């Protein structure tokens, strides 16, 4: 226990306690009373001839109660307080996690964010609880961390502002990342004083992390000099939860009107869960399956692997577009991850424009696909069509060993040749190589066995901004995907004729994937569910100047369309169905699902930041508490008792006495 205003209380006590004693002595200046004999009184009382001051201080209940009340008042003025740990002065940065997992309700119906706020406010009281009569030094900063970090309140010493800032933090449905939060904190901790020469100094600060520990990038961070981290564990280590980990919808290649829904379910509890899974289309239930999700598998140590079950619903016919939603009919700690949605675009055949030098390798493969139109032109004709804009009427433009001068907005699959795009610029001829690592989770690389591909030569490219390597070779990137400036390009950095690829089964698979990926990229908002934290990006025809994004909670955001017809809105805050409205076309629906990582609700008992392992703070239950209100309450109780005793004495003195004493015998 510490005292905020110890000196005030001591001074006051030094004044008032002797004053009470003085008053007591003054009050004991007894009224003289002449009586016939003191003989009987002397034997009845204990303080005969008590003339010295110390003898006067005989045990008196009323006096002791008055003294106790006074001491309690003095104690209250000292402002005693109990704290879980030693007070920490200086700067503090409170990093409050408000990611999707903080929506979990594993403690008495309150969310983890509520618990985090409570603990954070308790810490604020501890750090700044100077009470009425003093003001403790030190400043505190509030940063909310989720998909991105946000400064809720810069460094401040105002308890009211800090508490209001904490209360103002809202839940999000995204992942939790600490890196942005640390950057922001460090930016504010850096002391840039133009009057001080030399490099800017960074003041030390105590980082207070209020989280369940499920931070995607915590281990990649490290504490800098002067920094220290206190981890306040929010939530329980054992929190069972089931979730929809992934959802995928696909039209059958041989029957484009039929749709298949693939669902992956996860169980993070120690017991298997049997529940129903509901499938609905545009809000109307069309299927119900019972499913048992196996329990969490605990490996050696603390590693655990969630139980996973994959499901495929019976294909159903969908000739138009629609919103598919699957829902786990179970109530657990986190309801958000029990629902997942996806938008299915209408079936559509593609129109492909092909220009190829040499043997028709690609043409052969394309002819095997189900396309609305395959137009084959010469490279020169393609150049002209690109120039006059007629090429833009095709869904995908395919080239092999063709180098174009300009590349307008559109979707391209290019084998060899040079692309007029900075990110795909060739800097040297690549020597022969084998392929090494492929990005198998990319739609273009699905079912593409790349291990056997050997290229004799190619274009050595250093991928820069916007270019993503889909297949890495031993010397140079073999396949890249570039997206930017209204163009989406899958670029194969070598001519297949210079490799063994045309003889492999993966070649037509790749072409099919690439045509499908590029050709349906207009439906990208629908075919691929977005995740919280990402952005909704779209392209609108010329003439459209604005679109409106409507969030699941009804919040509307009006966006101005950029010069190239693109619009971007983000980061996505909530999971669920988003609508994109524009004047000249029907509303486009975008499905956003919860990041699967956030379904793992087991709170970490310690976190690893860089090389430091930080155990959860033990101050969770020992919240800071001001004791002076209790002291005041005790004063009132003591005064009540004192009044009661006094009243009893007074009323006792008025008690009915014996009748005529002459009849005592």
């Amino acid at each position: 226990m510490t005292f905020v205003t110890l000196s005030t209380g001591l001074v006051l006590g030094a004044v008032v306690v002797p004053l009470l004693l003085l008053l007591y002595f003054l009050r004991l200046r007894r009224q003289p009373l002449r009586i016939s004999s003191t003989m009987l009184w002397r034997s009845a009382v204990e303080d005969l001839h008590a003339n010295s001051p110390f003898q006067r201080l005989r045990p008196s209940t009323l006096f002791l109660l008055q003294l106790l009340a006074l001491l309690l008042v003095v104690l209250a003025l000292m402002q005693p307080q109990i704290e879980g740990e030693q007070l920490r002065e200086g700067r503090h940065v409170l990093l409050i996690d408000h990611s999707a997992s903080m929506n979990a309700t594993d403690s008495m119906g309150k969310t983890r964010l509520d618990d985090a706020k409570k603990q954070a406010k308790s810490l604020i009281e501890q750090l700044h609880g100077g009470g009425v009569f003093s003001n403790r030094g030190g400043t505190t900063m509030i940063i909310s961390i989720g998909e991105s970090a946000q400064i809720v309140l810069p460094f401040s010493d105002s308890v009211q502002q800090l508490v209001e800032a904490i209360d103002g933090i809202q839940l999000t449905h995204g992942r939790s990342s600490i890196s942005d939060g640390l950057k922001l904190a460090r930016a504010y901790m850096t002391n840039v004083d133009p009057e001080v020469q030399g490099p800017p100094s960074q003041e030390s600060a105590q980082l207070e992390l209020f989280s369940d520990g499920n931070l995607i990038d915590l281990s990649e961070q490290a504490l800098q000099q002067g920094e220290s981290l206190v981890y306040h564990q929010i939530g329980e280590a054992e929190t069972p939860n089931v979730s929809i980990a992934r959802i995928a919808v696909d039209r059958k290649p041989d029957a484009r009107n039929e749709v298949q829904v693939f669902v992956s379910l996860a169980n993070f509890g120690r017991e298997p869960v049997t529940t129903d899974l509901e499938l609905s289309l545009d809000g109307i239930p069309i299927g119900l399956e019972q499913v048992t999700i196996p329990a969490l598998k605990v490996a050696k140590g603390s590693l655990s692997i969630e139980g996973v079950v994959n499901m495929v619903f019976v294909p159903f016919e969908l000739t138009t577009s629609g919103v598919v939603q699957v829902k786990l009919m179970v109530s657990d700690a986190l309801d958000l991850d029990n629902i997942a949605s996806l938008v299915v675009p209408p079936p559509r055949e593609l129109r492909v424009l092909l220009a190829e030098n040499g043997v028709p390798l690609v043409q052969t493969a394309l002819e095997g696909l189900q396309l609305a139109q395959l137009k084959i032109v010469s490279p020169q004709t393609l150049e002209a069509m690109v120039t006059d804009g007629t090429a833009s009427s095709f869904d995908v433009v395919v080239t092999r060993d063709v180098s174009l001068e300009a590349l307008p907005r559109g979707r391209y699959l290019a084998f060899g040749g040079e692309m007029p795009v900075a990110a795909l610029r060739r800097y040297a001829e690549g020597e022969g190589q084998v392929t090494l690592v492929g990005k198998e989770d990319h739609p273009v690389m699905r079912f593409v066995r790349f291990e056997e591909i050997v290229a004799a030569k190619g274009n050595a490219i250093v991928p820069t901004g916007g270019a993503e390597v889909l297949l890495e070779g031993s010397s140079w990137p073999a396949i890249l995907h570039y997206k930017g400036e209204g163009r989406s390009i899958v670029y194969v950095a070598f001519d297949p004729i210079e490799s063994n690829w045309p003889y492999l089964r993966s070649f037509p698979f790749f072409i099919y994937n690439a045509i499908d990926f590029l050709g349906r990229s207009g439906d990208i908002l629908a075919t691929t569910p977005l995740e919280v934290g990402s952005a909704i990006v779209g392209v609108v025809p010329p003439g459209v100047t604005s679109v409106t994004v409507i969030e699941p909670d009804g919040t509307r955001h009006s966006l101005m369309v950029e010069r190239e017809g693109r619009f971007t809105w983000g980061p996505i805050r909530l999971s669920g169905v988003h609508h994109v409205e524009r004047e000249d076309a029907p509303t486009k629906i975008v499905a956003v699902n919860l990041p699967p990582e956030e379904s793992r609700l087991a709170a970490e008992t310690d976190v690893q930041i860089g090389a430091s392992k930080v155990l959860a703070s033990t101050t969770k239950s020992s919240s800071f508490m001001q004791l002076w209100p209790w002291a005041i309450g005790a004063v009132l109780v003591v005064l009540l008792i004192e009044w009661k005793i006094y009243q009893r004495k007074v009323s006792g003195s008025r008690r009915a006495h014996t009748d005529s004493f002459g009849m005592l015998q």
Partner: protein
Amino acid sequence: MSNFGDTRHERPSKVDELLGSSLMSSLDKLDIIARKIFSGKIQGERRSKRRGVSVEFADYRQYAAGDDLRFIDWNVYARLDRLFMKIFIEEEELTVGIAIDASASMDYGNPNKFDFARRLAMSLGYIALSSHNRASLFSFSDRGVERLTALRGRSRTRDMGQWLLDLTPSGGTDFVEACKTLSTARQGRGVLVVISDCLSEDGLSQGLKYLARGGWDVFLMQTLAPEEIDPEHEGMEGDVRLEDVETGNTCEITVTSPLIEKYKERLHSYCEELRTQCARIGVGSARVSTDIDMETLLVEYLRTRGLLR
């Protein structure tokens, strides 16, 4: 200085205020009883062991020369031809002594103890004089014993009253010395009524023994004021310094219910001890509060106690 215990009523200054006419008429019917049978010098209303002149026959004896011929039983002489004298129980006069404690402690209370004692003494004296007994009044304190003795007849009532009015309570109490004096002050045998608050630190037993051995039929009237019986009820409260009017001793107290209860216990045990001592040596005793009605005390209370009839 608090007025607790101070006499608030008007003090008696006339004999009539000591003994009113209505009370006087009630007392006419009363007489003082001696539990012992005494002999007096003159015939009174008291039976004596000595045979004498009265209406109550006691015995016969043979006539001897010089005997009063009026007491010869002539009927016996007619039958037996011999002279026999009738012997009657002689009714002697009774000495009624009334001793008042005139120490300063008696000048206390409301009603005042000393005034009460004077009124009681006046009443008992009047009863004695009305019954043709000899009345003697004493007052005692540490200054000694003052007396007014050998009063006879109702005509001395006023003298007795005036003597009582002239008494002034002061000084301490030397009960033993007073009793020694009183035990030798007896003129004939009689009843001695001692009126005192009996609050003596030296104790009363020795003095009472002197009186009992001195031949008195002693009756002790312990007189206490209401303030002494229930001080808290009479207004004693707070922190007070008690001062003994006789000794000057002080005692500082805070009036609380437990203290009052303890005081009452001590008072009760003190009185009970006094009563036991009196009973042991054949002294009658009674305890009265000064707020009791005098007629009730005399007509009812003391009659049941055997002092009056």
